[in-house]
């Protein structure tokens, strides 16, 4: 019997799936991110050379972790023999590693690894790091994306992203940001920060804030993968499940949301036959799980709202009363002008555009393009075309996404086709 040959794409898949796990374990052993990353990259280089002839090892992740650890220890020994002054601290470090291995009895599989990844995630999303840095670190260390890939996804030059990562890793090292799952007191708000970073990744993928393409699929897929990971790592937090459900339900509509030409299609006009039923079923099951737990939070409520939309076979069949109730619940636990704006949209479907317009005119959202876009739509529905056109112009001036701008421009042209202000 011969093993199937190992291709480059097999190794790439293992890299993508196991990089985060391996880095997390190595960070625990060596206490340093750069050492861990170098060692894991060394191990994958070795894998690229060996696996095509030896075949995949029975546990690729275990092989990578063991090889990476040996590489790092070799490197320490080499450094130590070059520099006698350094040697003592290296010996101490190696002793420490031995002790950790004995104490934890080779915990490279199972729960301990889960804990390693969770610890690293809390480090990446530490509130002392800027959100952009949190997102970049999470994608790099846990997602295994290269610096070039992250830079491309966020439309910044690779050197800028490299600098952002170096700076963040430098702060973790120099300010000694700990690798630790926060204590019970801090856990809820620290988990919130992790979820926020993942949702930021998802949103950046879903509605690229600048550029031509409306959806950058890779980031959405990566955010969902990280969302699954967090939901499994903090099973007691229903918000983690809520976030996963929310992302799945939004992702389910991807094929219907963009025309073949890249134009934006609003929820009400989407071809619901294009929705991904598998993702909807999974998202709805998670929403039911959240309801059973009965500890609502913003992500769970947003997921529930999207679950209601997913239930309607036609836009006209949408249960707006239930959606309005969910917005009321959201306003009760976490009121904000943006929630009020979205609640007004639901209200307009039940009580009419006039009432909704009166509600949103008091909101302090002058800088937010959706505020103007929603106002424009309500004005259009009330036949106030001139005001609607002004509001569309205000919305267009406040978004850089090409697909959204094109959509708003079409809507604006439909209210005042021949007039410019």
């Amino acid at each position, binding site marked *: 019997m011969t093993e199937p040959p190992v291709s480059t794409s097999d190794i790439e898949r293992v890299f993508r799936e196991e990089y985060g796990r391996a880095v997390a374990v190595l960070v625990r052993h060596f206490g340093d991110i750069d050492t861990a990353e170098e060692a894991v990259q060394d191990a994958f280089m070795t894998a690229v050379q060996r696996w095509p002839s030896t075949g995949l090892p029975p546990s690729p992740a275990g092989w990578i972790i063991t090889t990476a650890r040996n590489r790092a220890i070799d490197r320490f020994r080499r450094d130590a023999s070059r520099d006698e002054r350094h040697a003592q601290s290296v010996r101490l470090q190696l002793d420490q590693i031995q002790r950790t291995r004995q104490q934890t009895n080779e915990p490279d599989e199972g729960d301990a690894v889960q804990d390693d990844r969770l610890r690293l995630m809390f480090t990446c999303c*530490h509130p*002392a790091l800027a959100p952009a840095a949190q997102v970049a670190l999470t994608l790099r260390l846990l997602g295994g994306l290269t610096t070039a890939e992250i830079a491309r996804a966020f439309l910044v030059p690779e050197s800028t992203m490299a600098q952002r990562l170096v700076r963040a890793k430098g702060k973790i090292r*120099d*300010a*000694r*940001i*700990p690798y*630790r799952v*926060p204590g019970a007191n801090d856990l809820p708000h620290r988990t919130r920060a992790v979820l926020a970073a993942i949702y930021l990744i998802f949103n950046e993928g879903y509605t690229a804030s600048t550029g031509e393409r409306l959806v950058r699929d890779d980031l959405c897929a990566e955010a969902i993968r990280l969302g699954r990971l967090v939901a499994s790592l903090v099973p007691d937090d229903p918000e983690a499940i809520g976030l996963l459900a929310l992302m799945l339900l939004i992702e389910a509509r991807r094929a219907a949301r963009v025309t073949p030409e890249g134009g934006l299609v609003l929820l009400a006009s989407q071809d619901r036959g294009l929705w991904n039923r598998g993702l909807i079923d999974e998202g709805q099951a998670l929403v039911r799980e959240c309801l059973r737990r009965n500890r609502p939070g913003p992500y769970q409520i947003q997921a529930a709202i999207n679950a209601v939309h997913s239930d309607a076979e036609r836009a006209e069949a949408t249960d707006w009363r239930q959606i309005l109730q969910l917005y009321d619940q959201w306003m009760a636990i976490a009121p904000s002008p943006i929630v009020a704006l979205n609640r007004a949209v639901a209200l307009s479907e039940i009580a009419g555009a006039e009432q909704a317009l009166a509600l949103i005119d008091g909101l302090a959202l002058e800088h937010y393009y959706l505020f103007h876009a929603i106002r424009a739509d309500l004005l259009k529905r009330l036949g106030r075309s001139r005001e609607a056109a002004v509001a569309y112009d205000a919305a267009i001036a406040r978004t850089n996404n090409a697909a959204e701008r094109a959509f708003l421009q079409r809507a604006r042209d439909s209210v005042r086709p021949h007039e410019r202000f």
Partner: protein
Amino acid sequence: MKQYLLSVYQPEGDPPPPDELNAIMQRVHALQAELKAAGVWVFSGGLHAPSTATVVRVKDGDVITTDGPYVEGKEHIGGFTIIEAPDLDAALEWGRKAARAITLPIEVRPFRDQH
């Protein structure tokens, strides 16, 4: 153990009225006692206004002396405390206590390790 500098970001302008200032100073003394009792205190000090500062610097081989702070800003360091803490989370916890006591922003910054 690592050392962290906790510095107070003070806006320019007059200090708060005496009653308020007294209450702040009482809280600052209490916090200092707490830092000492916890064994983390290394050093603290409050500074006079930036208008009392003098700058000396080397220019063309000479050392020249000028009046006033090196950089004029809307904020200056009004005082600082050096503490020892095992990691940033512990240092930030003291930083939060200091911010609540002083009611001004506190910058928490690690010292370089000594070699």
